[in-house]
């Protein structure tokens, strides 16, 4: 059985309460951290090699050390709990079951960064999780882990939970900061980065829920020990939310470096493909990462087995690789239509584009319309080339990564499954359930 750091004791009844959490070793890391110096904590996190779990995989310790230190200006720590990537549901699970783990991580991280006010920005749709967190925060205040002079260290911390209004774009860190300030959630133009000018123009660190939760095991076991788990520069454990056509969907904690094949087919994890069918494609890290056909997800182009790690999954670049992303693992069996799936993803990005910069505002909608046209049997070969062209004109030209996130799935689907698109164009009569997708107001002008 693989090692569990975050999901340890997750099935203990009442682990979401302070009493049970403490009985199972909770807040021991906090007590240890409070006896350390903030710089030492940052050093431990650096040693651990912990990388951001929200998708980009940026080393957390390095991010923390970038924070500017102008005199007399407060620091802020924000936990990004705006988990909205299709296919990703690990943070929600963690917060719902073990809210105190996140709170403990928040206190340690705030102490390390010298932040006296910290926020958990939670997605608006997860209101019930907000109530769980607020109850847990109250318990932490009552126990003296939050508030003034925490554990006699002289460190004060106030922790707030702030719900968004349900926008994917507010998961982008500067969009999140704008939203937290009470403005429209438009991402800011970088530089300046949040580490210099973030919330209320003060130095700010924004970290994912899982990253902050992982700080707790890093402190309790020590950075060096944590770095021994995993493979190469992908250290530690990662939560993977597996879904799609697998026998056992759910949130799994894996040690980074686990072979993808084992993850899909072993009974300990996904338990194989539904109904004994063949695997067709996998989206390995949430809807925005490139989709890979089964042969490329199980083996790298060099023929080595593909591992669940930042490096192995991105082996081959975008030509033949993908990304670990946020850990939203979507498996698709041979009955899946890539075109329909892609249209669904693109529809999502079209709906969630903030409309600030032109390529994303206009391009996502255009791609969605072209895909819908192909999907309903009105497409031409030219439309496939047009899609390819549009995605190329969005990628890398936008303010925030939403443009890239919308372009990558389209690019990879056409790259690996062009034949399927052509099949839709050449044999429109064979498309199943076409009428289901009809919408009168949006058909091409003929």
């Amino acid at each position, binding site marked *: 059985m693989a090692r569990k750091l975050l999901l340890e004791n997750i099935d203990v009844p009442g682990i979401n309460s302070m009493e049970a959490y403490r009985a199972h070793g909770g807040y021991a890391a906090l007590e240890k951290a409070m006896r350390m110096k903030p710089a030492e904590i940052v050093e431990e996190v650096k040693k651990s090699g912990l990388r951001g779990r929200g998708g980009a995989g940026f080393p957390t310790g390095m991010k923390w050390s970038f924070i500017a230190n102008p005199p007399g200006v407060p620091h802020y720590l924000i936990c990004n709990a705006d988990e909205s990537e299709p296919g990703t549901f690990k943070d929600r699970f963690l917060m719902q079951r073990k809210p105190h783990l996140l709170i403990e991580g928040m206190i340690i991280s705030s102490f390390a960064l010298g932040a006296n006010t910290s926020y958990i920005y939670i997605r608006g749709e997860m209101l019930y999780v907000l109530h769980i967190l607020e109850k847990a925060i109250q318990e932490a205040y009552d126990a003296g882990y939050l508030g003034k002079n925490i554990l006699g260290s002289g460190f004060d911390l106030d922790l707030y939970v702030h719900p968004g209004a349900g926008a994917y774009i507010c998961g982008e860190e500067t969009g999140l900061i704008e939203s937290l300030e009470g403005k429209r959630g438009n991402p800011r133009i970088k530089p300046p980065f949040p580490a210099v000018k973030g919330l209320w123009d003060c130095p700010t660190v924004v970290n994912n829920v899982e990253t902050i939760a992982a700080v707790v095991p890093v402190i309790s076991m020590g950075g060096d020990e944590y770095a021994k788990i995993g493979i190469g520069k992908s250290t530690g454990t990662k939560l993977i939310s597996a879904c799609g056509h697998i026998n056992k969907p759910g949130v799994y904690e894996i040690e980074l470096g686990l072979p993808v094949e084992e993850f899909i087919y072993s009974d300990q994890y996904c338990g194989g493909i539904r109904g004994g069918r063949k695997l067709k494609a996998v989206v390995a890290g949430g809807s925005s990462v490139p989709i890979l056909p089964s042969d490329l997800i199980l083996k790298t182009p060099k023929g080595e087995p593909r591992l669940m790690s930042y490096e192995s999954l991105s082996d081959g670049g975008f030509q033949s690789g993908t990304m670990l992303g946020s850990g939203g693992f979507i498996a698709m069996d041979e009955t899946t239509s890539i075109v329909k799936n892609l249209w669904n993803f693109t529809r999502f990005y*079209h709906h969630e584009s903030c*409309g600030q910069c032109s*390529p994303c505002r206009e391009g*996502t909608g*255009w791609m969605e319309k072209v895909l819908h046209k192909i999907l309903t049997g009105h497409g031409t070969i030219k439309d496939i080339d047009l899609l390819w062209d549009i995605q*190329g004109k969005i990628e*890398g030209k936008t*303010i925030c990564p939403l443009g890239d996130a919308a372009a990558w799935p389209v690019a990879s689907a056409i790259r690996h499954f062009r034949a399927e698109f052509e099949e839709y164009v050449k044999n429109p009569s064979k498309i199943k359930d076409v009428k289901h997708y009809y919408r009168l107001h949006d058909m*091409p002008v003929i």
Partner: protein
Amino acid sequence: MPKVTIDGHSIEVPEGTTILQAARMIGGEIVPPAMCYYSSLKGSGGYCRTCIVRVAQGSAKDPRPMPKPVASCRTPVMDGMVVENITSPEVLEARKGVVEFLLINHPLDCPVCDQAGECDLQNLSFAHGTEKTRYEFPRRTFEKKDIGNYIKLHMTRCILCYRCVKVADQITDERVHGVMNRGDVAEISTYIEKAVENDFSGNMIDVCPVGALTDRTYRFKSRVWFLNPMDAHRDCKKCSGKAVLWMHGEEIYRVTARKDQNAEVKEFICNECRYDKKDVKQWVVEGPRHIDRTSVISANHYEDLNSLKHAIGEQQKKLQEKITQKTSGI
């Protein structure tokens, strides 16, 4: 002072200058077009992406190129930076893409649009657009709205540059309009039961790069190129009083602020000057205004007489020289 090289032209600029400002200092063909950046409005720019350039060398200290094209209007120059604009086919291709994106939902109703002739989007698509659209779906449309007594909003034409929002934030007392909704249905709108009634609200029309905000007192009166722009001023307690009168004979059709060669207003004018002073006797007329930009206004029969005289004089001189050369040759 940091030294930056743009398309082979080097210039030393003060700390904090953006690539676009540096390019404007050099001038000429290498200046990237800008649809949302406005030098007199703080925090503007970065949205439209038409000014994107490639940074081939980040700085002298860190010569790595920037991984993605950057918005030149919001990227400060570093010492030793090397920028490619028109020398990079990649940038030109990307710009073409942006223009296409801006136009897919634009109604292209220039023949009936008041902005035609002084429209940034028109100039941009003339320079960088394609002659045919690849977009074959119904275009997004909105209802026309009156936002206040003086301004008409054609949301269909809007490219969401946020300039009018910045004007309302920075020049007027109170902003009562903003951007509602998101994505491609985002729209400029006033807040519920609010009208834009402010002493400086007319400047929103001047900064609008397209015909989304038009002057209700001037709508459909005349095409801009049929009017004679005249520099004029008056004593005004609220603003500088420096304006351009757009005249036809003795009649003032409209009053606008003065725009520089980048079509940007440096001195904003108040609504009293703009709407209430339509009699030529209320103004001190300085003389004809020269419109620098590539616009049909400067291409018509009306030109600055002095420069015309100068040009004719030069030509005559050259002709005279030629004749003398020929006669001396014989």
